[in-house]
């Protein structure tokens, strides 16, 4: 079974600074997808960024980028120029190729310090 581990329950960063959230996963599959989701106090999960395992290039979406290390099974999220609206729970998630199920980590609560 696949597992996703987020070892940082809480992180904080000064507004406009950069922060990196860590995620590791365990799988025996070679094809899969990785995601970072944001869950603000409104509770609605919002997709931040996705990475296909077969792509060597790290995904980027504006201020959000990932560092995908397939051999190390590591998938970290970097948030640049942090903004107050980035404050939320961040979940790392895994989905196997040909599988519908998302497997989530336990989340990291990100606080932005004005």
């Amino acid at each position, binding site marked *: 079974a696949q597992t996703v581990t987020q070892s940082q329950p809480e992180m904080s960063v000064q507004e406009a600074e950069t922060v990196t959230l860590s995620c590791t996963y365990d799988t025996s599959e070679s094809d899969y997808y990785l995601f970072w989701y944001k869950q603000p106090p409104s509770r609605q999960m919002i*997709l931040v960024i996705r990475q296909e395992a077969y792509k060597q290039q790290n995904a980027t979406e504006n201020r959000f980028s990932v560092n995908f290390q397939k051999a190390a099974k590591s998938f970290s999220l970097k948030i640049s120029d942090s903004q107050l609206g980035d404050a939320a729970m961040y979940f790392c998630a895994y989905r196997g190729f040909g599988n519908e199920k998302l497997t989530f980590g336990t989340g990291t609560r990100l606080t932005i310090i004005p």
Partner: protein
Amino acid sequence: DAGVTQSPTHLIKTRGQQVTLRCSPKSGHDTVSWYQQALGQGPQFIFQYYEEEERQRGNFPDRFSGHQFPNYSSELNVNALLLGDSALYLCASTLGSYNEQFFGPGTRLTVL
């Protein structure tokens, strides 16, 4: 364009009762997945419905059942509620297979 909607927002039940939660998928989506998110945890996959049939199921007991209607909306039913069923229940929709899942705001279920 309406996103995924869920009802009710909050619900309080007592042990042993039954509950039904509802989900309307994003416009144009035909597949609905349900997740249970306990306090302080990440969401856990319950099951997914496509073409009115359960396509995949997570590690949840038979007390958890579902249904999908011809208009693609879905219900999650939980029988014989336990205290441990208290959680946020999230619905996610997608178009077809293996595409991005869009989540609703969830239903907060409290079992007393």
